[in-house]
């Protein structure tokens, strides 16, 4: 898979001692999108941009621009479905990931 964290591409001599993570804010390098089995699909006809999905997403994968929901960061979304579950308008449906590969 293409989704690999950058640090794993370094050989063992370059890794920090004792499995330490020395620098903060590096979870963005860990592309967890490959874990996803179901993908959130947004129906923008129903969406009111209430931001519930943005608030509840545990991976900060809901993309917002100018106070509007615009999409999902598929490099990091694990497909947990919390957004779909929380959406008060049922504007998000979880669809099988394999559908998008064809």
């Amino acid at each position, binding site marked *: 898979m293409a989704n690999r*964290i950058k640090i794993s591409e370094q050989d063992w001599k370059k890794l920090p001692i004792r499995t330490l993570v020395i620098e903060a804010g590096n979870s963005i390098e860990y592309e967890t999108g490959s874990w996803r089995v179901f993908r959130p699909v947004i129906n923008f006809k129903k969406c009111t941009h209430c931001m519930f999905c943005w608030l509840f997403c545990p991976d900060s994968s809901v993309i917002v621009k100018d106070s509007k929901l615009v999409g999902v960061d598929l490099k990091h979304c694990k497909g947990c479905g919390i957004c779909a579950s929380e959406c008060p308008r049922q504007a998000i449906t979880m669809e099988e990931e394999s559908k998008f590969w064809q």
Partner: protein
Amino acid sequence: MGSFRVKGKVKALEGDNAVAEAMRQINPDVVAAYPITPQTEIVMTFSEFVADGLVDTEFIAVESEHAALSACIGAAAAGARTMTATCGPGLALMWEMLWIASGWRLPIVMAVVNRAFSSPLNILCSHDDSMGSRDAGWIQLYAETQQEAYDNTIQAVRIAEHPDVLLPVMTCLDGFVLSHTLEPVEVLPDEEVRKFIGVYIPVYPLINIEHPVTYGACAFSDYYFEHKRPLWEAMGKAAKVVADIGREYGNLTGRYYGLVDAYRLDDAEIAIVILGATAGATRVAVEKMRQHGIKAGMLRLRCFRPFPAEEVAEMLRGKKAVAVLERVAFFGAEVAPVFLDVATALYLRGIHTQLVNYIYGLGGRDTTPEQICTVFQDLADIARTGKAGPIFRYLGLRD
């Protein structure tokens, strides 16, 4: 060399008290420990030092050995100079945490007062505990005497904290044989011990608000392997560090220590390989055999992890017959653990010595020089006939 020899004060000490005395002089930041026979006197004596204000140590009395080593791991990650002590079943209960201490490269020093594993229930000496954990990424030193138990404790701090090493160290001493018997022990002046160990500067301490780091991250198939690889490196470098620090300690005290300790081995034709306190009885046996014109010698392994393969092989090269004596109940392999390493070291260097393996002294059974003389007699027969006979044998077993 610009070095000098310090004269210590000779005290009559049991092995456990000698270790506790060394710990008092080291004055670690944190000790978390749970008392268990025959290690109890270490914890008991050291906690008295804490209560009497003789050390600055934060002493954590915990509810189990799993908790003891867990607390030590936390303290060491925080940046504290950390020590503990255990034995037998206590070490077994620490099992899970042993790998975390080494994986996190924490320089924890732990006295292991060797005790047999149950069942049958036994509190006396076998090396089952430390031998069982020999591959956990801890350095292992085995003392022959109370003096060495004291000396190893002090050296272990330097070995563990060496930047090329950063591994935890077990300092092993035979339960009761060393831990509960009195011998004269030369105790260094406190200030000399503190000078020798120096000030501890931790690497990436957890309690460093300026530079926060993440400890205990998980690593799966993508880089677990790469994080384990440096342990082989550190273990490889540790051999030189153990030898260097043993020499430096010798320059200070007159008591020199190496990875191995050879006794009348140079011209020996037959030899015993052993570790721990029974090396003392073996020295007596060597002398007895020499009086009868038999060229006997001994190779004592002081450092078992890392295994000093090169030294062992070179020192046994040319011997006609060698017996590896082990105080361990280990089942399933053709031979016992020290034999495995000795045989591997010889085989890989093309040395073909007749090797035999003896199990002795399980559960605290005394092993006398006379019994060890029978091993030398067996070796002399093997050397003469060239026939080893059974490789795996029992010494001092009623049969």
